[in-house]
């Protein structure tokens, strides 16, 4: 008898999404996916492309990896293989998507195809998958969680890109590059943390 996490009422999905997007935001609170964050938020074009790609990959990874964990690994007591299996699946899937996009839509490939290899080793994507397992979500909940995480990643990327573009325009030279990215991230982390009352300052 294959055991999977029990039934989750639909109302419980809303807190999951809010968690993924705000209180446990992947970039600002969980610190996942920072390397791509500081590199790509210099312009809103790249941020847009990366956000879309990440949301897509996160959702698809959740869809693919949940059955593998609950139907293949857990019944055979092979939970220790989860990291390597997830990585294999994510990396292969991303490579497949890159092939398809490169062949059928050169325009889409130029705008977001180059980010795909970056995402296969992105800690945010692997983090989503590992957290799904840790939190013991049902299949639907894990997909919703992954999608919410992607949305959370996207809004932070776009907001930071907006801030950094303005910083550059103001000619504040010291704050170009990574330093500006981190100060912008700090401002947003303060907003998220204090608004949602995660920690009392």
């Amino acid at each position, binding site marked *: 008898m294959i055991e999977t996490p029990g039934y989750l009422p639909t109302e419980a999905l809303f807190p999951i999404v809010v968690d993924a997007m705000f209180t446990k935001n992947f970039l600002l609170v*969980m*610190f996942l996916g920072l390397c791509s964050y500081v590199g790509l938020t210099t312009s809103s074009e790249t941020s847009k492309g990366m956000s879309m790609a990440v949301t897509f990959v996160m959702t698809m990874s959740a869809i693919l990896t949940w059955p593998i964990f609950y139907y293949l690994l857990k019944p055979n007591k092979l939970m220790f293989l989860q*990291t*390597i299996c997830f990585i294999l699946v994510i990396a292969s899937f991303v490579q497949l998507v890159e092939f398809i996009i490169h062949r059928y839509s050169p325009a889409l490939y130029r705008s977001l195809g180059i980010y795909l290899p970056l995402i296969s080793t992105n800690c945010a994507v692997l983090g989503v998958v590992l957290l799904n397992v840790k939190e013991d979500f049902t299949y639907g909940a894990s997909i919703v969680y992954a999608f919410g995480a992607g949305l959370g990643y996207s809004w932070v990327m776009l907001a930071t890109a907006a801030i950094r573009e303005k910083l550059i325009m103001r000619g504040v030279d*010291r704050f170009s590059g990574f330093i500006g990215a*981190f100060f912008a991230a700090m401002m947003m982390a303060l907003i998220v*943390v204090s608004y949602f009352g995660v920690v*009392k*300052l």
Partner: protein
Amino acid sequence: MAEKSFVREVVRGIIKDNPVFVLVLGLCPTLAVTTSFANGLGMSFAFAFVLLGSNFFVSLIRKIIPSGVRIPIFLLIICTFVTMVDMLLEAYLPPMYEALGIFVPLIVVNCIVIGRAEAYANRNSVIFSIADAIGISIGYLLVLLLIGSIRELFGTGKIQFVMLMVKGGVPGFYPIGEVSIPIAPATVMITPAGAFFTIATLMLLIKIIGDRKRMMQLKKEGVEL
């Protein structure tokens, strides 16, 4: 090109190729686990284990890895060591395992480990790969301890120094000293915002010092500025 030596490669990993401040890689665990000195220390030990193992193995089999599939092979090798250290921590150092959470399995996609495997261990001999691993690990350790100490000091008013020891047959990170300063702690430093702030300020300081050095060197060379 300067002659390579074991010691020189180690030192290079600490300063010239410092993983966080120069290569700007592996930021996720750096910011996430440096809420205290102890966590930083634990993470850097786990990281060092994985890096040493992966560099050693990758450079051992570098001649027979086909180029097209090298990244998946690196991932496989790194993943083995990561799973090992994960299980070791869970078994022998449960409090540290709890504290580090998912960041131990995430070492497998840590840009530093994959980066060094690709850029260094894949092209250099076993001895130098080990030297590189040692250097980068020391560099990473120093960075984590620095940020962890700052955040813990200003976030809780004191730094709790710990070290990996075996006391009464039980291995763990036991306290070996304490430094405290008489200020009201700013809890924000423990939060993510504090993490970003600390690393931004440190990078800013390094940039200012680096710029000044570069300007002085250019002036010495007589380049018109």
